[in-house]
């Protein structure tokens, strides 16, 4: 089958946060892309959009034209496993004990590693305004692009505050506004205090990351995949999170550097999973390079409507 002539019926909507070759570095969106690539390699498209278009406000969401719309990663995987079960995933070969353990580790990864990724994308002030916000605004029409990114960021505040990752840590060389205080001396003291707070914050973040990544390295334990049967959805979830951190285009992120320095086993695992999925044997264009195996993100055809500014119940 050559380049698709008709519009694909299955469209996956993801956060507009690209990172190098990866269309979206938000982990649940990336995991959904990998699942779709396994299940329906050339019959889907990716589009950038925002949570409010989704049926229950969660990202990613899948639109199967003429059928239904589903949201969240678990909804998408459930739908795919009933409609298009893939031969490469060995989820059904797991013993009941292993399935229970798989559910447990999935929750662990989603909450712990997900917190770290949310910190990078939304928690740290300079990363947010330097990277996330420009990308979000570029996909928004004019009036909303000035206030919606801040609102999205505020949605993540309670969670990150409850684990102490809100606005903690260093700026890592992102452009910082020099505030003009009233007296030079007060400024220096304030700066000194904030530097100390930032150093402690960074140390705490690195300690949390080390704890999580150590546990996951022990889980992987030099095996090619987590379970002996082969690739499972737990591997895909872990790979999606590791790839999200590894491919963030934000320069000199502490967590990314820690990952690259000490946890090469996890990076190798993620690369292995990506290789297996994107170099999928079922794909008819098997010799194509990686960047063409995952479809390019198509431009959304939605137009801006003024009624979007009114509350939905009005």
């Amino acid at each position, binding site marked *: 089958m050559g380049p698709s002539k008709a519009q694909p019926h299955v469209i996956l909507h993801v956060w507009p946060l690209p990172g190098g070759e990866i269309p979206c570095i938000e982990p649940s969106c990336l995991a959904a892309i990998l699942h779709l690539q396994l299940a329906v390699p050339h019959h889907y498209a990716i589009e950038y959009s925002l949570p409010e278009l989704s049926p229950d406000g969660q990202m990613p969401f899948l639109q199967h034209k003429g059928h239904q719309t589903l949201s969240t990663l*678990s909804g998408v995987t459930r739908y795919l496993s009933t409609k298009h079960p893939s031969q490469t995933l060995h989820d059904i070969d797991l013993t009941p004990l292993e399935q229970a353990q798989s559910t447990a580790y999935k929750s662990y990864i989603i909450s712990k590693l997900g917190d770290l990724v949310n910190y990078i994308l939304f928690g740290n002030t300079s990363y947010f305004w330097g990277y996330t916000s420009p990308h979000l605004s570029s996909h928004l029409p004019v009036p909303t692009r000035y206030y919606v990114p801040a609102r999205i960021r505020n949605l993540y505040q309670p969670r990150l505050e409850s684990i102490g990752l809100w606005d903690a840590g260093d700026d890592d060389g992102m452009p910082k506004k020099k505030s003009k205080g009233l007296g030079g001396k007060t400024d220096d003291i304030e700066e000194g205090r904030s530097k100390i707070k930032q150093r402690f914050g960074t140390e705490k973040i690195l300690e949390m990351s080390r704890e999580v990544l150590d546990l996951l390295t022990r889980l992987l334990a030099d095996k090619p995949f987590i379970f002996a049967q082969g690739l499972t959805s737990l591997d895909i979830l872990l790979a999606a999170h590791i790839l999200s951190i590894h491919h963030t285009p934000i320069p000199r992120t502490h967590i990314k550097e820690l990952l690259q320095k000490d946890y090469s086993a996890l990076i190798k695992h993620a690369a292995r999973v990506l290789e297996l999925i994107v170099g999928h044997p079922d794909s008819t264009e098997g010799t194509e390079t990686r960047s063409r195996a995952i479809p390019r993100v198509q431009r959304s055809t939605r137009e801006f409507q003024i009624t979007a500014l009114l509350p939905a119940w009005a």
Partner: protein
Amino acid sequence: MSIPAPQLVQSLFAKFPLYTHPAVQRPRQNNSLSSSPCLWIVPPPPGSSPISTDVNCVKHQAYVVLNGLQTGPEKSRVRLRWDISEDGAIDCLLPNLALPNGEVLGSKAIPAWVHARVKENEKSLEGEEGLDSEWDDGFEDEKTRDEMRAWVEVMEGPVKAALAAYAPPPTLAESLTSWMSPRRAKDDLAVVSPLNKLSTAGLSALYSWNWTSNSPSENTLEEFKEAIRALADRLGNDKWLLGSLKPTSLDAVVFAYLHVLLKAGPEDLRLEVWQYANLVAWEIHVRLLVEKAFKQ
């Protein structure tokens, strides 16, 4: 004592003499009552059960009992008290532990206190330095301990999100006065799944007001069902979770969630847990232990 001032000012001040009253003595309560630590919890449902209705309180109650504190020496036994309002607690979060020396510990500091008491009790029993291992649980290896951490996240993730999503929405009076209450920051659903709190008005609206709550989505229920099924599979017929020889903190957490789900949980969620007989039986078994421990 006297500041140099003109005579006129001094005579003016003399009209307002300074009285010093003696220090107020704190009324001493009965010694027997104040000698044991007291756990402040959210009130239990009407009836004879001493187990609270709030998940956090049940977690700590179970943790105290399962670590064997209630069967130990008199001074480490914990009493219960539920007439303290949550607004007055540390971090506005009950449970708190009031110690005999007047100190009050917040809920985050309670596990450390329990550990210290357990070590003390062990030392006094054996009379010498026993095993100084920090992890005195019944697990054989690191792998099971890792799995334990993963299971705690299962309970604090999909299960907690389902409980929060199905919780009854605040009444009109509560929502109008919520800005006054110091507990405004404590919002389970926003903490567990941020995007669930998307206002029904949408992100783009120029003005949005959270006066309606989102109805729980099908995904929350599906993830909850998956989590409970996995938990039932993992428990099997074991006495304590993950095949441990002694009860652990994971048992306390799981018991807390199961108890609240079965006793006072929303209909849909309760029916889901009822399907698994081993979970129900395990909950009954641990509940009897906890109730007996606090009734002494």
